[in-house]
């Protein structure tokens, strides 16, 4: 993006924004040009057909940034500036706000230049996209994209669970009957393959593709990518499900005995073991936005956990009957659950409010959400992909695919339009256009990183490992002002000093000469100031009340509109 503000200091205007006024000015300038009275500034302004016949430069000023792009990079809300007497603080706030505005603008500009666009799939006018088969898609796209649809027939040791690494390059498969394998799924290069000769409950990559954890029949094991057993962790027994929190280096496990345990994989220590007292835990998800663990229970509740609290943060009754699967979206806004009551429900987990409820005839056994918000739900041997389930109610799936066996695990591949499906007969990699984030960040998760880059990333990531104590519902709380502590400290200070150093000085009217300072007049002036203050308060409250009233009225109106048709009894309503 080139800043083209060389010739003028005006706000950016575009040639299509030109109005008649400009035309008039042109005419004027022409005259001036004839009279040789042009000011230097006018000389600098390029005119469309000026006196000298120069043409206008159509793109003055820096290019505008679209508002929605700016909104994407907005962090927090601007507060009020501190009052003028606190000029130092005011100055600091003004400067830092200017800096953050600039950063926001630059980010938004950079966003316009990102190289890749997201994928999509659109059918004919009367064609449902869910009827389009994988083969049709493969035929339509280029060879490298087409190669992302493939089947691995592994009928002996299934059904399979799977996990993609953080960069999306590596795939880890764990067969129920002990088959564990990891591979670079794009080049189809096998990294290791083995049979652990035990039941495998779950598999999970750790922070990089060099280590993975396998929850086996009894203990939790950690292997490296050559398949060498590094650790057998006997503190973690009967693990059914695992989640890895990449920025905290924590492996959270849920066990058949009802324990939720956290393992710090950077130092190899158990952080905390929480007895959930909720029986067998085989439904688990984590919120990528705030690293909170969601557990689904057989009584239909979903509970939210942090390592800092022995009780659940939140307990939500989501289903009648047991919860079968839970998924949370990338921004931490939505949670999707499916239950034994054959329902699929969408919740807003900031407000703990149900948004949508769908009925699936067979019920969904596994759920997964992609980076761009596609939802995959497995019912028996069919995998359905839904788009935008939290918006307007969805009636048809976006895509559907029948796997060879009953589905055991689904997982979207990060940064790719691929959905991995583990089932009884092996593994299917399915192409789902529009699933993955098209532009990755090279310093966070780079699918094309070299070994050296990975090593450097690992060191950096370990250095900025977030301590488990910082996990909470709002991850940005650390940057907010702790008002209660401040008030406490202020009280202590007042106690020590014996007076309030921040107290507002009482208004004392100045002694005016020439007979205006009689005691009556002084009293009057004092009252005037007091009234002025009071008036401000009153004005504010009245405004607030009016605002609330207006909102309430609008809401009622909407409600009335939503209530729909006029009934016959409406005529009696006032």
């Amino acid at each position, binding site marked *: 993006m080139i800043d083209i503000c060389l010739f003028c200091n005006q706000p950016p205007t575009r040639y299509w924004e030109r109005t008649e006024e400009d035309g008039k000015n042109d005419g004027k300038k022409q005259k001036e040009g004839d009279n040789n009275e042009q000011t230097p500034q006018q000389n600098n302004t390029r005119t469309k057909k000026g006196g000298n016949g120069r043409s206008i430069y159509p793109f003055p000023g820096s290019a505008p940034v679209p508002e929605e792009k700016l909104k994407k990079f907005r962090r927090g809300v601007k507060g009020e500036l501190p009052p003028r007497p606190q000029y130092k603080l005011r100055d600091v706030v003004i400067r830092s706000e200017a800096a953050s505005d600039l950063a926001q603008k630059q980010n938004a500009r950079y966003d316009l230049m990102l190289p890749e666009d997201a994928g999509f799939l659109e059918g004919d006018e009367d064609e449902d996209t869910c009827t389009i088969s994988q083969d049709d898609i493969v035929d339509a796209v280029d060879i490298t994209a087409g190669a992302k649809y493939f089947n691995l027939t592994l009928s002996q040791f299934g059904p399979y669970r799977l996990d993609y690494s953080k960069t999306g390059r590596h795939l880890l498969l764990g067969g129920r009957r002990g088959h564990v394998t990891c591979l670079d799924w794009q080049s189809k290069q096998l990294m290791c393959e083995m049979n652990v000769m035990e039941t495998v409950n779950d598999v999970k990559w750790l922070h990089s593709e060099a280590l993975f954890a396998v929850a086996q029949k009894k203990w939790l094991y950690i292997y490296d990518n050559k398949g060498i057993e590094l650790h057998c962790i006997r503190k973690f027994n009967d693990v059914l499900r695992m989640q890895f929190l990449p920025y905290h280096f924590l492996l959270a496990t849920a066990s058949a005995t009802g324990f939720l345990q956290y393992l710090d994989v950077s130092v190899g220590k158990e952080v905390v073991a929480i007895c959930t007292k909720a029986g067998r835990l085989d439904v688990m998800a984590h919120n990528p936005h705030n*690293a909170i663990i969601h557990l689904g229970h057989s009584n239909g509740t979903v509970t939210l956990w942090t390592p800092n609290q022995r009780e659940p943060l939140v307990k939500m009754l989501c289903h009648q009957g047991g919860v079968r699967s839970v998924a949370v979206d990338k921004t931490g806004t939505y949670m999707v659950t499916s239950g034994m009551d054959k329902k699929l429900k969408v919740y807003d987990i900031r407000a703990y409010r149900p948004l949508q409820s769908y009925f699936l005839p067979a019920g969904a056994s596994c759920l997964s959400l992609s980076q761009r918000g596609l939802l995959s739900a497995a019912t028996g041997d069919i995998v359905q992909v839904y788009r935008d389930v939290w918006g307007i109610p969805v009636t048809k799936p976006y895509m559907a695919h029948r796997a060879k066996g009953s589905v055991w695990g689904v997982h979207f591949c990060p940064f790719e339009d691929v959905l991995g499906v583990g089932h009884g007969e092996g593994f299917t990699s399915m192409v789902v256009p529009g699933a993955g984030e098209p532009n990755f960040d090279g310093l966070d998760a780079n699918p094309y990183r070299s070994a050296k*880059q990975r090593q450097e990333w690992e060191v950096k990531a370990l250095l900025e490992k977030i301590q488990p104590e910082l996990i909470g519902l709002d991850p940005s709380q650390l940057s907010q002002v702790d008002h209660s502590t401040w008030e406490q400290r202020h009280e202590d200070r007042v106690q020590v000093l014996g007076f309030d150093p921040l107290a507002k000085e009482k208004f004392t009217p100045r002694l005016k000469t020439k007979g205006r300072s009689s005691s009556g007049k002084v009293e009057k002036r004092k009252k005037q100031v007091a009234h002025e203050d009071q008036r401000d308060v009153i004005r504010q409250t009245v405004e607030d009340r009016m605002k609330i009233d207006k909102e309430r009225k609008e809401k009622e109106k909407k409600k009335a509109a939503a209530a729909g048709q006029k009934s016959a009894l409406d005529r009696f309503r006032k």
Partner: protein
Amino acid sequence: QHLPALTALSPFPEFPYFIHIHAMKVKVLSRNPDDYVRETKLDIQRVPRNYDPSLHPFEVPREYTRALNATKLERVFAKPFLASLDGHRDGVNCMAKHPKSLSTMLSGSCDGEVVWNLTKRECVRTLQAHEGFVRGMVVRFCGTSFFTVGDDKTIKQWKMETPGYGEEEEPLNTILGKSVFTSIDHHQKEGVFVTCGQQVDIWDEQRSSPIRSFSWGVDSFSCVRFNPVETELLASCASDRSIVLYDMREATPLKKVIMNMRSNTLCWNPMEAYNFTCSNEDYNLYTYDMRYLDKPFTVHMDHVSAVLDVDYSPTGKEFVSASFDKTIRIFPKDSGHSREVYHTKRMQHVISIKWSSDNKYILSASDEMNIRLWKANAAEKLGLLAPREKAAVNYSQKLKEKFQHHPQIRRISHHRHLPKSIYSQTKELRVMKEARRRKERNVRKHSKPGSMPVVTEKEKHVVTVVK
């Protein structure tokens, strides 16, 4: 076989994977690895960025962790002591900066010797300037000569150049005064200098008697300084606990402020030259606005003994003070407490202190015949920094600033090891102060409302202002 015709209809023929079949439109992410990996091993790695906040979760906790690490590393790398310049055979009494050369510094000791030091850390020239103490010295603004005053009641002007082989060390000029001089300072632009002793004298370089003398009451002066910006203004510290301001063009002093205790030295802020800071015998430093002397606008506390000298950094944002308690402290100009304290086992009472003109070093002269060279910023890396290194330093600096009030970071960044005597004395002083405050509060509580007004710390130390 109908494919080519339909492809031609496509609005984006440049995308090979974007084709209409049965009027179905599909695009699947398909990256060309050539766009993401380097071409040859000689190139640097490509790092495509996407600043989307949703791809960077836990922004605040990660920044906090970085800030915490940066704070810890800062304490690890805080090694401020650089060198000790030894060679004097008596306590060093005064120092002077060279206005033109960063690497030159002058020092005067109690046995009348003037030693030159270079940042090669060696003495370049030694001369016997006075008999008895060298009380003050100053380099002329052009840097070609310098003046010294001593206990032998003389002012001597010396050439900066080393005399050639066989030449004698002789002053350019010698003035014999009537009384002992205690301090000297030179005008910023003209050939005028000022000395103080029993009165403040303004001298022309060409004459052997002062062109003007000021005295206000019977007292002796300990320090006199020219204002660096309003060059005709002067300030001096007198032994009757006052700080006096003068205008060189007027016959009488401007005004003075009398404080509870005597001020030893003062220094003008080089950037906001209406402010000056004085080092006081009551363990504090006071920053005054020249225009409003009735109360200092900041009281800088932390020393546990008399403060002997003070010097501003050339940026005017910080100053350094030397104290009888054997420590040096660095204060931000508007903060009541120091941000840094330097001490070593062998350093005795620090008598003189200077902040180098490049804002990077501090020189301290102490009783035990040594001059010490310190870094002004204890954890700073010296030498050239690579651009990425510089960027990293700036980034961590900003992070530390952002999270400075978090208790853990605050604790680590504020922690300083202190010698036992100073540590216990600080504690004792705190207890005493707290007791005094408590008593005052109790007296106020049990007396008639309004009869015991609240006197702030700033107002406490000023007795009166005389005009």
